[in-house]
Structures are given as C-alpha cells and as structure tokens.
C-alpha cells in the first residue's frame, strides 16, 4: 500500500505546482462562472425582497413565464419522441447514409440561433413563401406563439437524440433480440427492455433540452416581434426590462432563469452519479484504481 502510493506520488507535480494549478483553475472558475451567477441574484435583490417580489408579480412577467412554460411543454416532448425514434433507427440498424443522417441531426447545434429564427421568417413571414397564404387564412406564425415554438424546437432539436444515440449504440442489440425471440412485441421490448437501459441518458437529454428551450434567446427574438404580454418569453422580457433601465425587474426575472439553470445542474449531477454507480456495480470490479479512492 505505502509502496504503491509512493509510486503514485512520483508521477505527479510538486506540491507547490499542484496548489498553484488548483488555485489558478479555481480563480478562473470563480471569475467566469461564480461571479456572474452571484451578480444575478445580488442585482435582483439590490432594492430588497419587496422590490424583487413586486417585479415578479407584474402581469407582463407572468405572461412571459406562462409563454416560456408553454413553449417548453410543446418543444421538449416533440423532440423527445423524435430523439427516441432517431436513436432507435440509427443505433439499432445499419443502413446506407447513416453517418450523414447523424450529421444532419447535429446540424441545428452549429447553426447560429439568429439564422434559425431567420429561416422561419423566410418561410412564414409576411414576405415569405407561405406568407400570402397564411395572411389570406388569417393564421399568424411569425410574431406569434407558433413561430416561437417552431424556433425553439429547431434550436433544441438534437439534444435528446445525441444523448441517446451513443448510449444505445454502446448497449447493442442483444437484450432486445432476446426479448423478441422470447415472444415480446416491439412495443413491449422497447418499454421493458430498452427504456430501463436508457433512462438516465433520457433524463439527462430532457433536462438539458428543457433548459435550452426555456432559455433560448436569439432564435426566439427574431420570430417573436416582442409584443409585451403576448409574444414575450422570459429571456425576451429580461431584455426589454434591461433596455428600459428597470435593472431590478430585469434581474428578478433573470434570477428565475438562473435558478432553473442551477436546478438543471443539480439534476444533471445526480443523474451522472447514479449512472456512474450503476456502471460500477455492473462492471463488478470492487477494487477500483486506488487513486480514485484517495481522491474522494
């Protein structure tokens, strides 16, 4: 044991170097991550809890919160169904063009949010492809809720699929095949065999998708039209308040979004720890590398 740990010590840095590196890394995290987060809450509470709560009681703030929740409630389930379907098709079968399809699924990640909004304006806006037809039938998509939902779906499109595809590929097909051979139908196989296997990846994808859906700014800003009380999501409402120099109100709404981010991070960490634990239990290798034990 002591022999082992001595050997480990040689393959690391001198204590002063270690402390220096940890110090610099923590200072960077503090400056770039902790301080902005703290600033949100500090600015929101600058004039006390009363002003904070008053800002959140505004009807416009409420309608922004409602619209954000509605948008996420539509976008996340749609992308969830798509994510499962895409992962099933891509991970469980071989077909030509699979790599290309996977790239296309990832595409919305690399498109600028502003461009994502613009493409729907070009399709459904007054001067767009379907604009005249929509106007004739009195349907509003751009500068209305459907456009916001569409833009949000686009921006969050790959989140769940790209969590599930590598996970299902790593797990292979054996268990599903066994279920089918034993007489289960496709739905039963998915429900009782596949779903329990992918549940952590699924939750992980859903919470990240949800965080982005509720927080999306650029794409939504292009299609929303910024009509107060009607087409304002929470991030857009933050912008309007901020530009009107209502700093406390802006940061109050922003603090709700920051709380959402913190909750997302907590759930994400829990999911990761659970997953890790299951992986370890599955691997059945109790004596993990001694370094890891020391580390905790």
């Amino acid at each position, binding site marked *: 044991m002591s022999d082992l740990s001595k*050997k480990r010590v040689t393959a690391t840095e*001198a204590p002063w*170097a270690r402390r220096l*590196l*940890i110090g610099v*890394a923590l200072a*960077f*995290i503090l400056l770039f*991550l902790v301080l*902005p987060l703290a*600033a*949100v809450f500090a*600015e929101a509470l600058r004039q006390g809890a009363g002003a904070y709560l008053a800002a959140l009681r505004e009807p416009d703030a409420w309608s922004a919160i409602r619209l954000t929740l509605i948008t996420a409630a539509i976008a996340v389930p*749609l992308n969830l169904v*798509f994510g499962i379907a895409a992962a*099933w098709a891509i991970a*469980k*079968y*071989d077909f030509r063009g699979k790599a290309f399809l996977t*790239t296309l699924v990832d595409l919305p990640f*690399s*498109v*600028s*949010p*502003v*461009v994502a909004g*613009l*493409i*729907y304006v*070009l*399709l459904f806006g007054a001067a767009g492809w379907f604009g005249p037809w929509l106007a004739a039938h009195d349907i509003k998509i751009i500068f209305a809720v459907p456009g916001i939902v*569409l833009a949000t779906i686009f921006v969050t499109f790959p989140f769940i699929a790209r*969590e599930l595809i*590598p*996970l299902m*590929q*790593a797990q292979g*097909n054996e268990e599903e*095949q066994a279920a089918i051979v034993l007489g289960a*139908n*496709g739905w039963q*196989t998915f429900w009782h065999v596949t779903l329990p296997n992918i549940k952590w*990846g699924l939750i992980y994808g859903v919470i*990240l998708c949800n*965080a982005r859906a509720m*927080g*999306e*700014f*650029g794409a939504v*800003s292009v299609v929303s039209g910024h009509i107060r009380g009607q087409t304002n999501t929470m*991030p857009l409402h933050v912008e309007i308040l*901020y530009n009107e120099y209502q700093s406390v109100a802006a*940061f109050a709404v*922003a603090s709700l*979004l*920051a709380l*959402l*981010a913190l909750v*997302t*991070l907590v759930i994400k960490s829990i999911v990761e720890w659970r997953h890790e634990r299951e992986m370890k239990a599955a691997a059945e290798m109790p004596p993990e590398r001694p370094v890891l034990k020391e580390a905790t």
Partner: protein
Amino acid sequence: MTAASLGVPLPGAAVPSRGGSKKVLPGFNLTLGYTLLYLSLIVLIPLSALVFKSFTLSWDQFWTAISSPRVLASYRLTFGASLVAALVNVVFGLLVAWVLVRYSFPGKKIVDALVDLPFALPTAVAGIALTALLSGNGWIGQYLEPMGIKLAFNPNGVVIALIFIGLPFVVRTVQPVLEDNEKELEEAAMCLGATRWQTFARVILPSIAPALLTGFAMAFARAIGEYGSVIFIAGNVPMVSEITPLVIIGKLEQYDYGGATAVAVVMLVMSFLLLLVINALQGWQRRRSGGA
C-alpha cells in the same frame, strides 16, 4: 457535448453488423420514416428556404450585401473574438480538466458540476450578468476603469462573453480522455529520466491533442453563432463592436430580407465547414482512443 461523460464508456463501441440478425428488431421503417419526416419539416425544408431565397438575389446584390464595409468589420470581430476566446478556453479548459481529473480538493464535485453552467444558463442572463460585473460601476469594472481598462461595451466584452459560452466544450471533451489516460506511460517516462514538464509535453499532450482540438473547434463554432450573451456587453457600435448575427437582425429590422439572407448564407456555410471539421476531428479522436 457532455455525451462523453455518459455514453462513451466504451469508445467506438458501435456494434459491428451481424447481417440478418439485426433485422429481427421491429420498427425500422417506422422510426427511420418518422426521423426523416421530422428532420425534413423542422430542419431541412426551412434551411433550404434560406438557400432558395439567396438564389433570388443577383450575384451583384449578394456580393454587395456580404462585402459592405460594415459587414466585413462584423466578420472580423466575430471571427477574431471567437478565435481569441476559443484559444483562451483551450488553455483554461485544459487546466480545469486537468485539475478536476488529477487532483483532489474540497468542493471538487461542485466545481465539476458548475463547469456546465454556461450550457444551462440562458445566454441573455449571462449577458446582463457579465455586463453588470464589468461595466464602469460594476463589481469588477469599478476597479478596472480607473486603471484605464475597459472590458464592457467594446470588443473586449465580446471576447469575455464568448469565453464564458465556450468553456464547457473544452473541459468536457478533454476530461474523459484524461481520465482514460494510462498513468503507466507517464511513470515509464519518469523512470526513463524525463522531467515532469517533458512528460507533459511529450507523453500527455500528444494523447489529448485530438480532444483538445475538438473542444477548440466546438467552442469556436459555438462562439461564431452566439448572440444572446454578446449583445448586452458588446455596446454594438457599427464597425467596432457589432457582431455578424446582429448585422442580420439589423437588416431584418429594415425589411432587407435579401441582405439578411445573404449574410446568413455566409454564416451557414461557415457552420457547415466547422461541422465537417469537428466530425473529422472526432473520428480521429475515436481512432486514437480505439488504438491506444
């Protein structure tokens, strides 16, 4: 993104095809059909609208729209700031990943979880928070401004916002590779007389280089398209601190759909190229970790 931390305990473990046995599973037509339909409706058809719209412009119109001095200045800022931010993220992202993998210190798990904050925090919130910190009367800005250092409402602010946005990409691509690294190689290098620094430069760095490059490219790609966090802190002065996505919005607000489309096509082409580069880099990384 962070798929690596969940889904890639077995690198490159795509199941090799076993011929007919795969066809046992039902649902191929249904799931692939739905995937293609949804992909077409949400992504492909709308994106093609952008391309077709750009065809309605004459070459001259297109060229004028994408090469006016104001637009050129916005490219310079967007690409320049993204490059600087991605490089900073490579250095500090590697440092954070290294510290998280190799050392133990109190609060390590919290720091590890916090690294993903830029993924989870809405960009507009990040934008106003950074502005509140760095503007002349902010927590940090009030000390820097008297010294003549201005970090908000100019290109510096753009770089800082993009560093914030890009940080998790480098950390999360490098971290799993560092975790899988075999310490034996380093110990061998030490035994053969290498200094710690030589070991790092000759043994560790080459093994994480593909991951580092992938993280760099992802942070860069994300930074180029970023809008929400930047516009609050940039000041948005044309020719000085106006980013390309904002130019598109400006053209849209003047109902110049053709001009907005042209600039958007330029951005889209850049995103495509970066996506191809990232895919190639990830392939390289998988082969590396598979062969090691």
